[in-house]
């Protein structure tokens, strides 16, 4: 029987999470304040538990007119403090999708060079509005991000509130069931955002536990003030 060598350098595969957050002007005030209050809690909940931090990599991408990497993909146990986010500009989905495609590829290559193995990354897409850029443009960018021939294409979860359009969010997740969620009628952002962030923490914690089984699963958060967007029936 041939034998496989296992040494100290062998590590668990990591599960990358990208929080892709709409920071357009409509997020100003209570929504962005709420995000800034919750992000440090997310950092400490995930980063201060060695068993979770070991297998989770987390990054934050913000988008408005353009997209930024607000927090590079990292082990949250090594992060001193998360950056404070500010809202401004319009809502360019294409900027977000193009940026994600680029940094996922870069992060994957950097991780591989450092000896990391990856599970398929997860993108948690959060928006409070409709895209302000040309529909053809953002759809083309989404097509590049979700391209089936691209091996690093992420699993996308989409969450919307405020003026977010459920049909567009369903499109963002490729019309997969239980991947797109929208806030209940009348649920204020001050309630939705903290729920969303604490749901994200639970999702990361549960997903990290599944990493140790050797077959990671993206656990969808349960959010009391949001409901799944129904999947269309085909003609």
């Amino acid at each position, binding site marked *: *029987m*041939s*034998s*496989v*060598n*296992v*040494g*100290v*350098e*062998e*590590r*668990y595969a990591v599960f990358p999470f990208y929080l892709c957050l709409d920071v357009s002007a409509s997020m100003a005030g209570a929504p962005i304040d709420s995000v*800034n*209050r919750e992000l*440090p*809690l997310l*950092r*400490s*909940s995930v*980063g*201060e*538990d*060695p*068993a979770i*931090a*070991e297998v989770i990599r987390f990054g934050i991408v*913000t988008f408005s007119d353009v997209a*930024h*990497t*607000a*927090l*590079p993909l*990292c*082990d949250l*146990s*090594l*992060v*001193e*403090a*998360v*950056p*404070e*986010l*500010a809202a401004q500009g319009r809502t360019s989905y294409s900027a977000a999708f193009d940026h994600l495609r680029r940094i996922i590829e870069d992060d994957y290559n950097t991780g591989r060079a450092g000896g990391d193995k990856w599970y398929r990354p997860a993108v948690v897409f959060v928006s409070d509005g409709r895209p302000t850029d040309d529909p053809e443009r953002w759809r083309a960018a989404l097509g590049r991000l979700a391209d089936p021939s691209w091996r690093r294409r992420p699993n996308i979860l989409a969450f919307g509130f405020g003026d977010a359009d459920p049909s567009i969010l369903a499109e963002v997740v490729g019309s997969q069931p239980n991947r797109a969620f929208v806030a209940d009628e009348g649920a204020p952002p001050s309630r939705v955002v903290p729920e969303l962030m604490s749901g994200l923490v639970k999702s990361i914690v549960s997903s990290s*536990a*599944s990493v*140790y*089984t*050797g077959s990671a699963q993206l656990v969808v958060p349960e959010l009391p003030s949001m409901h799944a967007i129904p999947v269309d029936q085909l003609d």
Partner: protein
Amino acid sequence: MTDVRSAPAGMLRRGELRLGELLAEGGEGRVFALPLQPHLVFKEYQHPFSRDHLRDLVSWPEGGDQLLAERVRACASWPTAVVEAQSPRGASAALSLAEGVVMPRAPRRFALRHRDGVTRLATLSYLTADPAYREVAYGIELPAAFTPERLGIVYALARLLEAFEKLQPAVGHGDLSAKNVLWSLQRGPEVFVIDCDNCERFGPDGEPGSQEGRRRAMTPNWDDPAVAPGSNPGLEADRYSLALIFLRVAGAANFPVQARQRQGQAITIEFPVPRGYASEVLLGPAAPLWDMCSRGLSLSDPGGRPPASAWVAELEAVLDAVGAAGLMRAVWATQDGGPTREHRVAPAGGGADVTIRPVVAPPRPAPPRRLVAATAPARSNAQPLPVPQTAYPLFHEATSPPAVSRQFADGVVIALRWWLGAHRVLLRPATGARAGRRWGGQLALCAAVDLAGAAVGLFIVAMATAPVLGI
């Protein structure tokens, strides 16, 4: 209020317990503090289960060495009382169910204070990676790989499992995961095993004591791959866990072996031994320690896994060889007992599916640096991070915020140093007009400070003595 300490084998009703803070919440249920019994916790099950099983655990052991029983009480959260499910209309089904169980709370020394000031349970997770990396992440200094302290922690666990195996009837924990084994080095190497309500009693034939088909928890990554899906772990599972914990804690690495074992692959584990120990006979390539570890991890022959007592004897020999007999005695002191009387087990050829090969520890890569917010292009949040409300506060005393008293003490020391320095200057003779002016200023300042100090001191003395004198 019932004092559950006085009823170690007792049954309680929920109403008899005054619940305090919610300490933890998980798949099995919730854990609450008990303000009137701060050394205990109440675990409330999400789904009530067999009262008889828990009652059997509370009354365990039925026989065996009293010293071994005390060892269990010293280093395990063993159930002390069963809390009955309430049956409003006297339904017979509820009479045989338990709503929860009362168990000892982890003593405060089984916790670590992170850089952010929050104290968290000292799980084995801290020890299963490069300690330099953990230090960068949490600001906690941990023993280097394969140091006597790490061996001592495994030794302490082996002694607890020895008691589990030798007392009557034998028990198996079944879920010796990183989160369920806490450790401390404050009084010497110690462990504290939690979630002991997961334990099962086994007869001499190895059959489990409870027959109601209870599904016992097993944590992924710490489970025995020999246990088939849907089955419960037997006594051999703890022996697998002990070998795995030795590998990961002593070696300070993940050693992810189970997935490969499940695929039926034979594995060779290259275990790093520090250069200083590499010449020790008991750690050389043919040392019995490696054979014992490979048999402990064997999937092809689970029945041949060495018992905990064999580990105890072997680790005693190794600790002695590396000059750490003092640590061994510290373990005995914390566990109420002395050395094992077992003889070391002779090598038996090892399982064919796992081989442990000691190698001289290669240098580990330099630990990464902490990421400060400045690395991110967005504006940084330089304020201290808020303290999470659920930071696993499963230890006796509430943690005090760091450094308030220390800051005060530091301030007093600085003031005293200034006072002494200033008065020392006054004792030096002043020469020249300029030095004389400076000396005069210093004298005036010292006089003012001394006068103010005397006034404050007199006021404090007056306030303290006035009630005594009836003024």
